[in-house]
């Protein structure tokens, strides 16, 4: 899990379960239940910060990504293949050129 700009108490809570290998980067081997509880805690206490969680799964990539709190980056699933989509200035500029089909505008 990674945390960015979140309250100090949330960091403390995570460090009780996981190892902080770098500031804001937490690694550990937790059960599915603990992992989901930690995620709920992180999402509930992030306020204006950001958090991500990556955990092992029996899919083709071998892991699942979930993110919270970052409006420009979000996880997209392309036919079951998870990638992170960034909506930056360059994307906005090019989006006008390649003209995505209309039904994608709803997204």
């Amino acid at each position, binding site marked *: 899990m990674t945390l960015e700009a979140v309250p100090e108490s949330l960091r403390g809570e995570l460090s009780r379960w996981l190892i902080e290998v770098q500031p804001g980067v937490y690694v550990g081997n937790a059960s599915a239940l603990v992992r989901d509880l930690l995620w709920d805690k992180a999402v509930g206490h992030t306020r204006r910060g950001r958090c991500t969680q990556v955990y092992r799964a029996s*899919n*083709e*990539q071998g892991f699942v990504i979930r993110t919270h709190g970052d409006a*420009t*980056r*979000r996880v*997209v*699933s*392309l*036919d*079951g*293949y998870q*990638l*992170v*989509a*960034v*909506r*930056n200035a*360059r*994307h906005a500029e*090019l*989006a006008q*050129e*390649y*003209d*995505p*089909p209309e039904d*994608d505008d709803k*997204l």
Partner: protein
Amino acid sequence: MTDPTSIPPTSNAIIWQRQNLRELPKFRDGTTYLYLDHTRLEQDGRGVRAYHPEGMVTIPAASLSVLLLGPGCSVSHEAVKALSDTGCSLLWVGEEGVRLYASGLGETRSAARLQRQALLWANPQSRLRVVRQMYAMRFPEGLPPDLTLQQIRGREGARVRDAYARYSRAHGVKWDTRQYKQQDWNRATPVNKAVSAGNACLYGLAHAAILSMGYSPALGFVHTGKMLSFVYDVADLYKLEVVLPVAFREAATPGDDLERRVRTGLRDHMTRLRLLERMAADLLHLLGGDDPDPEPMAPGDLWDPEGNAAGGVNHAGHDS
């Protein structure tokens, strides 16, 4: 004369060596496929970026086997170069990946396996042996050795018919006949669409396996005469086991987005079946080819009936 300002500043950039093919994950370890449409692919730094309607995504090209490019895609020259360096096969496909238009080059630089495939293909006896082996792989109980090719085809036909009937019963989806009419795609039955979408993925993957391992997609053993004959051969080995369960299951589920659901379901199913690993192993088993890769930059040999002569050497002294 020397202008001191022309001295280039000391650069801190990392000098990347030419891609070492050995450091790439082998085909069997990679992930299967990614389908993109209305996307613009560009190279950025050392990576490949895709400007997708959802946002900019970086493509994990080195671990990806096939990139399926649908309508509305444009690719820059540098992006194709980066993809080919990492051995990611590019396939240009129709909407929802149901038709295959064109393909790029795989990652092998040696022709040894292709030559062995051509030898096996050109000799009627060895070709028949490979054909029998391919059919035998589909019958776990084995095939009696005295069957003629016609009899084998009869059994294969019965096996295919039974499989369709079995899945039709299991999922409660009515099955009439396989429709291939690509012209009126929208009038095909849902299950036919599902099977076609699934087959397109499987063809793409078989194509990538063949190219990536250094064989030719055109020299088919069972199929013949098409540029993709060998792709159909390889795909047929797995089609019923891989595509039908997913296609019938998704066709039985109500809702839109049938083709997309088939592709998603297929990914999980292929992972469970360890399909990439099996394709690689089966191709080597059928056609052989475990020679060590030659030095990729070394010049190729020159053919001689007495045995190959070294290439990259001037043979002018030998004309007397």
